[in-house]
């Protein structure tokens, strides 16, 4: 009985004081846990690979389930020899900027895609049509964040003047030509409206006609480029996908669409330097 009481007292003492010093008999009253200073280090738990990390989920967009109780956890990954920390959404390498907390960057998914209609009278034509809306809700598990506050109710504008690195990726879907002879041009154009009153100006336009950028992946066409632009406050950004075809079509000519999967279709901006 005395032993049990002693044990209980010790446990309560421990809980109440909640101070542990490791490596010394000098208790610090300013820390929960204090490891003695000196030539001996501390090794935190390790894992051989990230697939063994807590909350790993191969089907999650960022491979890890969201879990608030694990926030602040640290683990060492032997594969790439660095510590990782858990931010509530995913594990982040210790000395790199955490994706979703990178304050000078945004990655915007497509909230509303567009259809690019095509017609065929022996010769097929497709028509350029508008711009997808990059107003998808933020989703930290998909690394969709708007830390630059680019999104407005109906458009995307720059809030801080500076030089930006803008990345664009887009997937064209659909578009069945059957037998085709001729040239079909896929075009992706990044445009800026520098002031509300000005016209849209093309910053860069990449096509598979003069500059190939389209890769056929299981029927879809994927494209990507990055561009540096100097932008004033209020500048509006948009991406205009277009297809022009002068092909002689032996088959049906279906409309093209834009894929809204954020892994392959997005508009991203990073503020390199504010003016």
């Amino acid at each position: 009985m005395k032993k049990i009481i002693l044990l209980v007292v010790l446990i309560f003492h421990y809980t109440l004081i909640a101070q542990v010093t490791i490596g010394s008999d000098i208790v610090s009253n300013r820390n929960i846990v204090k490891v003695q200073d000196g030539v001996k280090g501390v090794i935190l738990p390790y894992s051989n690979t990230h697939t063994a990390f807590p909350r790993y989920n191969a089907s999650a967009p960022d491979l890890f389930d969201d879990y608030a109780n694990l926030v602040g956890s640290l683990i060492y990954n032997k594969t790439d020899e660095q510590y990782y920390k858990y931010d509530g959404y995913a594990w982040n390498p210790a000395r790199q900027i955490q994706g979703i907390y990178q304050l000078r960057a945004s990655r915007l998914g497509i909230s509303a895609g567009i259809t690019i209609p095509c017609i065929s009278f022996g010769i097929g034509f497709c028509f350029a049509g508008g711009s997808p809306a990059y107003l998808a809700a933020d989703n930290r598990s998909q690394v969709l964040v708007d830390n630059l506050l680019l999104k407005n109710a109906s458009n995307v504008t720059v809030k801080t003047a500076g030089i930006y690195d803008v990345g664009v990726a887009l997937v064209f879907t659909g578009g069945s030509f059957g037998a085709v002879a001729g040239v079909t041009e896929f075009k992706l154009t990044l445009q800026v409206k520098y002031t509300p009153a000005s016209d849209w100006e093309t910053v860069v336009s990449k096509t598979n006609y003069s500059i190939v950028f389209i890769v056929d992946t299981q029927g879809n066409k994927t494209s990507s480029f990055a561009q540096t632009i100097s932008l004033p406050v209020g500048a509006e950004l948009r991406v205009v996908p277009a297809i022009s075809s002068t092909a002689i079509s032996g088959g049906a000519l279906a409309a093209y669409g834009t894929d809204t999967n954020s892994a392959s279709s997005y508009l991203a901006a990073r503020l390199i330097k504010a003016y």
Partner: protein
Amino acid sequence: MGSLYSAQVNFTNIPNPDSNASGNDQVMMYITNTNEASGVKGFGLPAVDTEALLPYTGGSAPVTAIEELKGMLLFVKSTGQVMVFNGLVWSKAFEVESDNISRFQLNAVSTTTGSVLLPINSLIDKPNFLADPLKLKTNVATSGANLNRLYIRQTGLYRINLNITFTGPAGSFSSRLGAGLYVNDAQRFQLLENTVNFDGTNRKINLDFSVYAVQGQYITLEAVSEVGGTTSYTVTNNSFVTIEKVL
């Protein structure tokens, strides 16, 4: 109580957390998972909600350094950052912004088919700005398929710059040259540029891809020439790939 912990401490239910562990390891504390298969657990740092709640800040900031608090760690939930206290002020414990760019030199490689995967040399040579803070080539084999691969260690948005020098037969060499990008061996993007023969022998491209990649995926790159263009050429080792983690 204190003397209880003067030796090495294992916060595990196994007697020896590492078969190599010994009293000579200069390790004070092991917090080791029993085994990888039964589920890995991490080590939870104490956390505060915002930076404003960090102790010894604002009006409570110490005038002189508090020696016993040097090295204290706290996790700030609102910023997702681990902060370290030097006795006077708090600073980021882990992140360094310039550590978001890796750069590698390419090995020379030739093709007769118009496209060729680019061998990426993992050599670190910081005076020549070859470095790998993104750990894309750490513990990656330097031969076989792995020579061409860059392993993504964190899900996010990457900008990949390719600066490639081509040489080919004089007079008949294509002016439109470029590069392609694969994710886990699936081709994703191609870019082609109009080039000039800038010194009588060489042509150069310099282009940027934007790609969203998931932790554990690998990226490979290839040099390409336009369809119907020159199929025989050489990529020289005056070629580089620079990977920036944007987000």
